[in-house]
């Protein structure tokens, strides 16, 4: 469990003038100074910019203004979130030199709430990976054991919170890219309901699956951050046109009377220490008054296969715009087609190329029905199976990751082994439901284990109630 100050406590003390935002941000910058070389959580540390915005927060508070619920809170942003005038790379060479002319909606909302951005965090190139080893700028190391990966693709954001570089961070989750690194780094990570958080300004990997979400030290901070960034955005057509439910009230609700499902036909493959933690979670929840109910979700096991057709298919189209014509890097060549090929050949890393090829193939004439079309059917089946399960339960609990943090290089030579990291997280993306990982217990080498809580669409209040209960029983709630 991390021992850093919660964002709630920071915002409270900065808002009352008890501490200054500059001091808070300086402390975090000092920790970055101390350990960043070792961890490499960031592609870019916004040292001067962070101090300047902290100064402005302090000035506004001194002037008696109400700054917002994140006043002076240092936040790190995954480097696939657009920041106006600040390089945004997706950890790819192909975006070399590009500075977006706009802020992502979430960035603007957090800035409005008083947040201070301390840096842009490393990721697997274009969010494709589960270890942050696929970054063009080198891997991020797990702050809890630097011989191991932080998970991915939002490994930099998870590591930043785990190392105390920022009080909170934002990641994006397409198939588990928030929840898996949260589990591996011992922090809370949430993938919200699809459409709850605007994707405007999030550089797309797979648009129908991508959601932005928080990394925090505890469940209550996650509730706070999600409340600050969720809500309808007319700039994103897939944004849910209704207000986001309050979460803070759910935190102390407890689980008495809740029906929590155990998926009996869950795909196997989780390590014994992980399975033991999940079993223990069910015991704790039952002790707290929840009813544990066995359910089946037959389609769960097909999720991974469907995902690795749908996500690459969308990616092959989303990433076609990186052609060297308008922005980013360009490799000059004799004619336009050669320029495209040279630019993309040099600009993209091997995992990105692999997925572009997979996706292009899956959508090709003659193969569409057998691959992409069939994957869409699995997606519909998955939604049906979950809907059936939710007739008898309010939430589900599973492992977040099949294992604790693994050593560098242990899966890089075998893409399929790496893809299996997403087994338990993918279904929520396919059906657009919320899910979160909360630290619960420890495994091999005392490394943290994350338990995943799943809920139906817009079921975040229930999900947070369950996660808060698990956190209380694990002794992880911050003051």
């Amino acid at each position: 469990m991390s021992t850093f100050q919660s964002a709630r406590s920071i915002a409270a003390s900065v808002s009352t003038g008890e501490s200054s935002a500059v001091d808070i941000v300086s402390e975090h910058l000092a920790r970055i100074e101390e350990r960043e070389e070792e961890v490499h959580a960031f592609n870019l540390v916004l040292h001067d910019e962070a101090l300047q915005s902290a100064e402005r927060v302090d000035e506004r508070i001194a002037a008696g203004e109400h700054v917002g619920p994140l006043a002076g809170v240092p936040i790190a942003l995954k480097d696939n979130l657009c920041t106006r005038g600040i390089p945004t790379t997706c950890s790819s060479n192909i975006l070399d030199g590009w500075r977006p002319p706009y802020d992502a909606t979430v960035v603007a909302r957090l800035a409005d709430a008083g947040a201070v951005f301390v840096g842009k965090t490393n990721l697997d190139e274009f969010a494709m990976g589960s270890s942050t080893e696929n970054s063009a700028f080198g891997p991020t190391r797990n702050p809890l054991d630097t011989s191991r990966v932080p998970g991915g693709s939002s490994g930099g954001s998870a590591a930043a919170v785990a190392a105390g570089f920022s009080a909170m961070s934002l990641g994006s989750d397409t198939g588990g890219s928030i929840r898996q690194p949260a589990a591996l780094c011992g922090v809370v990570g949430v993938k919200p309901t699809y459409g709850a958080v605007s994707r405007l300004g999030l550089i797309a990997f797979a648009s129908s699956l991508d959601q932005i979400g928080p990394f925090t030290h505890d469940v209550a901070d996650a509730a706070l951050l999600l409340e600050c960034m969720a809500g309808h955005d007319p700039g994103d057509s897939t944004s849910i046109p209704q207000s986001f439910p309050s979460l803070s009230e759910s935190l102390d609700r407890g689980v008495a009377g809740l029906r929590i499902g155990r998926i009996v036909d869950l795909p196997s493959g989780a390590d014994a220490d992980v399975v033991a933690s999940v079993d223990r979670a069910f015991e704790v929840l039952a002790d707290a008054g929840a009813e544990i109910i066995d359910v089946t979700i037959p389609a769960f096991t097909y999720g991974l296969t469907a995902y690795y057709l749908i996500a690459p298919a969308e990616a092959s189209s989303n990433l076609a715009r990186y052609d060297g014509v308008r922005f980013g890097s360009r490799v000059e060549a004799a004619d336009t087609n050669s320029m495209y090929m040279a630019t993309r050949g040099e600009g993209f890393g091997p995992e990105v190329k692999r997925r572009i090829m997979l996706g292009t193939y899956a959508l090709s004439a003659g193969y569409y029905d057998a691959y992409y079309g069939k994957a869409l059917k699995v997606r519909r089946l998955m939604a049906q199976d979950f809907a059936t399960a939710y007739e008898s339960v309010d939430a589900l609990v599973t492992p977040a990751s099949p294992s604790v943090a693994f050593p560098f290089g242990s899966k890089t030579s075998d893409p399929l082994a790496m893809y299996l990291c997403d087994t338990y997280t993918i279904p929520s993306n396919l059906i657009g439901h919320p899910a979160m990982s909360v630290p619960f217990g420890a495994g091999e080498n005392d490394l943290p284990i994350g338990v995943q809580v799943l809920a139906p669409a817009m079921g975040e209040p229930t999900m947070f109630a369950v996660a808060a209960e698990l956190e209380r029983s694990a002794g992880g709630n911050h003051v």
Partner: protein
Amino acid sequence: MSDSATWTHEGFEMVVGLEVHVELATETKLFSGSPNRFGDDPNTNIDPVSLGLPGALPVLNRQAVELAMRIGLALNCTVQSCTFARKNYFYPDMPKAYQISQYDRPLNIDGHLEIADGIVIGVERAHLEEDTGKSTHIGGSGRIHGSEGSLIDFNRAGVPLVEIVSRPDIRTPEQARQYVNELRAILVEIGASDARMEEGSMRVDANVSVRRPGEEFGTRCEIKNVNSVRSLGRAIDYEARRQVALISDGEVIQQETRHWDEGDGRTHTLRTKEDADDYRYFPDPDLVPLDPGDEWINTVRSQLPMLPAARRVRLAEVTGQAVDSEAIATVVERRQDDYVVAVAEIGGGAERVLVHVKEAFSEQGSEPSVPAADLAALVAMEVGGELTSTQTKTLLGDLVEQGGGDPKAMAAARGFEAMDTSELDGFVDDAIAADPDAWSKFCAGDGKAMGALVGHVMKASRGQADGKAVTAILNSRKG
């Protein structure tokens, strides 16, 4: 044109379907807020969506949907709930490397358009899509290959288009021309587009095949670069003859895209089926399905103006002229039929009003500068015998030149004194006295002799007498 009814060549008939792209007359682009305006400085009407920048998201333009629905309803289509798809291909002026279009669920389906002689051309679909940017290739042939460089203007990127796809119901070049002319008249009437082929706001591609009547459809070739209605007729005539010649030589038609060369009057291979792109259509995950709903559809339907065909029928009824007469076609094409009806309502003489407007208002728009009351007064004087047709024509010219006026005062100013019957009777008496021979021949039934008598009257009255009135008097005298 005389080839409306038939086109046959060595026993073959042509089978033609047209794909017509029209730019919609919206304020802003299909998926962003940049102005939709032709002729501005390059790259001034752009934004992150138009440029396909990372993180940008499309938001559908309601006005574009409404104009597209008008087109569908005017073409007797079923308007349905629909989806957007991505059409993937690389081209420098295609910012995202995909075009957002509609594929398996278009907005409008199953309509038709009636052209002359009761011939009905089916409309398969009319769907929404976005336009590309515009490339100018410098040096070389003006095409991308072999050019020294290309300049791209993204002002047009994202401009809303509707693609109207006819069924292969067209059998002659004249029918193709009539279809396009009628379609253009409808598009202008409903305010959907200015539909100018020369400016590219209306673009026509033709799918041409040939067969012996009653046989299955032959292999078709798509003809592009047809830039006027006249060229359309020439291009499909050439292409159909080319195909007949090939078949007659025992060759097989290859499905391909061909380029019409206005200069040499031929079509040339642009790309064969083997070179055709695989567009890898799939549902655009950035957009949600569009369901216009009955209420909106009915509102749009109720707001449709009277269409050109109905306008011709109305004008025929008002004027007593044949519905397919040139005067009616011309006046409706100029959108001056409302004016003709308004003038006739004031003072009658609808047939004369039609003739005058057709002859004298060719430079005027749909709202002529001559006030309806002034033209009505002039026609009333003409019909009432106060003016000869020659005088009427002169005064009509004055009215057009001066943008209106009081015809009575204008007649007086020109010295066109109305002659009362007694004065005319005097002139007739004089004429009979002067040429008794002609009078007796006229009375004996020799119609030619009347000319001499009328000539006397005209000479004596210095052209002021109304020829019709003189004829009437002579006839009544004859008994």
